[in-house]
């Protein structure tokens, strides 16, 4: 009896395995339908700074190297070759040479060569004849002195000093290779790439259509015949469209926790994942505007924060406390909890607020004589809502704040003019790497260093970690820097948000990245099981 049972179980198991194997066999064909939250400003990835562009446009292009599209946590270790077949650093770690793939063609039939790589980086560095209308990531390549070609299929990046994280930047969805023969202006309206899908059309307020590239250099891919993004601005309509099956997938990382629950209750078969998107909500204080030029006052403000309450109220608990880099386990570089809790404002809220009130009393403020301020923020719900909770928290330490919603288009200009005292801002990181976050947000003189925090000693550490090739040593340095940034109250981080993506069960091979919202949209091996 026992033997028979084992044999039967084995047979069932074997057939189940076979069935699963068959079910897992990718199918060709079908159009993946996704709703898009807005009409993107253009489809030129290099000129934009929103994943509203990356999501539809990344499938049109290839990079030299790219993050493995099926590893949720992106890092230097998950980089795989794409238009490059291999890469190598020289001994001094100041030259990075890529061997390029042969036989790759642009969507218009022109062969891809090393010249295209050089053109792309000349554009990014503002060296070419042709110019971008906007170049938001020019600073990423600050340490690249030159890009040279050696024949048609080899290209070298020459650096001013070692910068191992250059690989991380090159692997980002923000770094596609552009064709030399297509003007930058055309890339905004009719992009030409080497990627798995060709651009068909983009109609404002209607749709973005991509069709399979039959000559894609990865043989047998893509599986899909095309991808169609229907632009649905109204979120309620978009969710209903997903539930009704009008689209196969929601816009990536667009679902709030509440909406995700709604979807699951209406369509229990839907697959939903809630993950961090590497966007943090932070407090910005004008360090030069009295009385905020007083460090003690800024410290009191830091101590007033109840981050858990913020996360519970705004994100229904789906958020993380951390420093300027995304916290672990999803984040690669973020401060671990044991270091985090040693930073003022991350410990016991009651105790911290008592200390904050004591500071405020010493500075001459009290419940009867509060400090009256305005908390400026962009007039968008994702900014306004946490600002309102922040105002309530500041009240606990005798700061009577009033919300100052700023017209979205004037926000950054207002901040740059230092025409604010206290504000609430959102900072998105294109890649989970300290170089991008530190230089962009905290280095002296950086365009996006909105508080104008400047610490020359720390800046030396930025360079030191950036040039460090030993990962463990670099991580230690990064933690030291991040801790210092938080202690200095350069831009106190309120929380790192998590958001959701849902798709129908017949959409196969979908991976949502857990430490970035900008790098996982190649979609070449997504397939539809229907």
């Amino acid at each position: 009896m026992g033997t028979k049972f084992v044999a039967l179980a084995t047979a069932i198991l074997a057939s189940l395995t076979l069935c699963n194997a068959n079910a897992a066999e990718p199918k060709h064909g079908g159009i993946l339908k996704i709703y898009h939250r807005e009409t993107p400003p253009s489809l030129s990835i290099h000129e934009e700074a929103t994943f509203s562009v990356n999501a539809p446009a990344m499938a049109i292009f290839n990079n030299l190297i790219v993050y493995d599209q099926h590893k949720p946590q992106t890092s230097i270790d998950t980089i795989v070759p794409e238009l490059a077949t291999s890469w190598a650093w020289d001994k001094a770690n100041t030259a990075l040479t890529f061997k390029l793939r042969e036989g790759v063609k642009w969507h218009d039939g022109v062969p891809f060569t090393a010249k295209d790589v050089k053109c792309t980086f000349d554009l990014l560095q503002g060296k070419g004849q042709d110019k971008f209308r906007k170049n938001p990531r020019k600073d990423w390549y600050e340490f690249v002195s030159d890009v040279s070609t050696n024949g048609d299929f080899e290209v070298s990046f020459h650096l001013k000093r070692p910068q191992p994280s250059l690989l991380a930047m090159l692997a980002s969805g923000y770094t596609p290779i552009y064709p030399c023969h297509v003007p930058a202006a055309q890339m905004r309206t009719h992009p030409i790439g080497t990627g798995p899908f060709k651009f068909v059309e983009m109609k404002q307020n209607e749709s973005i259509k991509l069709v399979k590239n039959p000559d894609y250099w990865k043989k047998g891919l893509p599986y899909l015949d095309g991808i169609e993004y229907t632009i649905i601005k109204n979120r309620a309509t978009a969710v209903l469209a997903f539930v009704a099956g009008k689209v196969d997938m929601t816009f990536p990382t667009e679902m709030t926790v509440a909406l995700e629950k709604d979807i699951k209750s209406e369509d229990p078969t839907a697959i939903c994942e809630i993950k961090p998107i590497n966007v943090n909500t932070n407090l910005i204080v004008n360090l030069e505007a009295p009385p905020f030029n007083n460090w003690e006052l800024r410290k009191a403000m830091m101590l007033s924060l109840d981050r858990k309450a913020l996360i519970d109220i705004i994100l229904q608990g789906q958020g993380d406390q951390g420093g300027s880099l995304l916290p672990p386990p999803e984040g690669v570089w973020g401060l671990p909890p044991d270091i985090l809790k040693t930073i003022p404002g991350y410990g016991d809220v009651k105790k911290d607020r008592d200390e904050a009130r004591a500071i405020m009393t010493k500075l001459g403020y009290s419940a009867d004589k509060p400090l009256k301020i305005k908390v400026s923020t962009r007039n968008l719900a994702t900014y306004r809502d946490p600002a309102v909770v922040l105002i309530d928290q500041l009240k606990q330490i005798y700061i009577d704040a009033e919300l100052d919603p700023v017209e979205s288009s004037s926000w950054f200009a207002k901040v740059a003019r230092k025409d604010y005292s206290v504000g609430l801002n959102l900072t998105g990181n294109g890649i989970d790497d300290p170089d991008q976050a530190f230089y962009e947000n905290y280095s002296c003189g950086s365009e996006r260093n909105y508080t104008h925090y400047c610490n020359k000693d720390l800046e030396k550490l930025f360079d030191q970690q950036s040039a460090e090739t030993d990962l463990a040593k670099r991580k230690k340095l990064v933690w030291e820097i991040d801790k210092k940034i938080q202690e200095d109250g350069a831009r106190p981080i309120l929380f790192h948000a998590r958001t959701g993506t849902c798709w129908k069960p017949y959409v196969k091979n979908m991976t949502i990245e857990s430490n970035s919202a900008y790098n996982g949209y190649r979609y070449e091996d997504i397939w539809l099981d229907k």
Partner: protein
Amino acid sequence: MGSYLIRRFFLMLLTLFGISVLVFTMLRVVPGNIADILFDAAGMIDTAEKGKLETELGLDKPIVVQYAHWIGGLAHGDLGYSYVSEKPALQEILPRIPITAKLAGLALTFAILFGVPLGVISAVKQNSGLDYVLRVISLSGLSMPAFWLGLLILMAFVKFFGTIPIYTDPPHGFWNNLWLYSVPAAAVGFRSSALVMRLTRSSMLEVLRQDYIRTARAKGASDSTVNYHHALRNAILPVVTVIGLEAAFLMGGLIVTETVFNIPGVGRFLVEAIRWRDYPIVQNLVMFIAVVAVSINFLVDLLYAVLDPRIKYS
């Protein structure tokens, strides 16, 4: 009549000129331009780079020069280029017009087909149970926000039919068009029909109390002849005015309905263009809506004379 038409035509031109100045000026008073928005979206502040873009788009020129450039272009049929899509503005605007026209046309048909007869019935059966029911329905039509009604309709479709009548692809063929536009048109038309119904009712009630109606009844005319031939014909003038105003409103004011039902029409496009400060699109689109509104008003004025022979234009 001829001199009246000429006078009206020049008045129309004057109105349109006034609107063009107003729109042009107001757009530039609103904080930020396309360069600000584009740079803001990328989190960039670099004023030198932004200045280059403003020069490229001609935004650094004096406002009078910009206005003259626009009007000069309009006179030659050149509407300029969209700052966002970088396509000719005409190419962007033209496809939206039939979409909104279909929706507005259907909504107006719905409003007239339901509003006028129900208004007559409500007046004729004044203070009856039917009158009360119709008045409650019309009141709900006027008081329900369009976005809420639209969402309710969509939710009902998803819940009971497992489908959703929203615009995702351009419909082909008569029946597909009718299916796609009839649901949002009903949502819009519900409000419009309520307006038309209430106005028809009150206008009818006033007319039904007139001496000539009593005379008609005394002469033995049937109820339907009295109600529809004698009373409605005289009561319809204010209703026609409101229908005219409603038609003009529907060509540019369906923003909420277009958003809820995801229809890429004129209203939604206009709001998006304002958000981007896409001046060529906003200016030309507002001028188009103004031309429609002014023309409809003119037609309604002419219609008065047709409906009421006592009205003569000179």
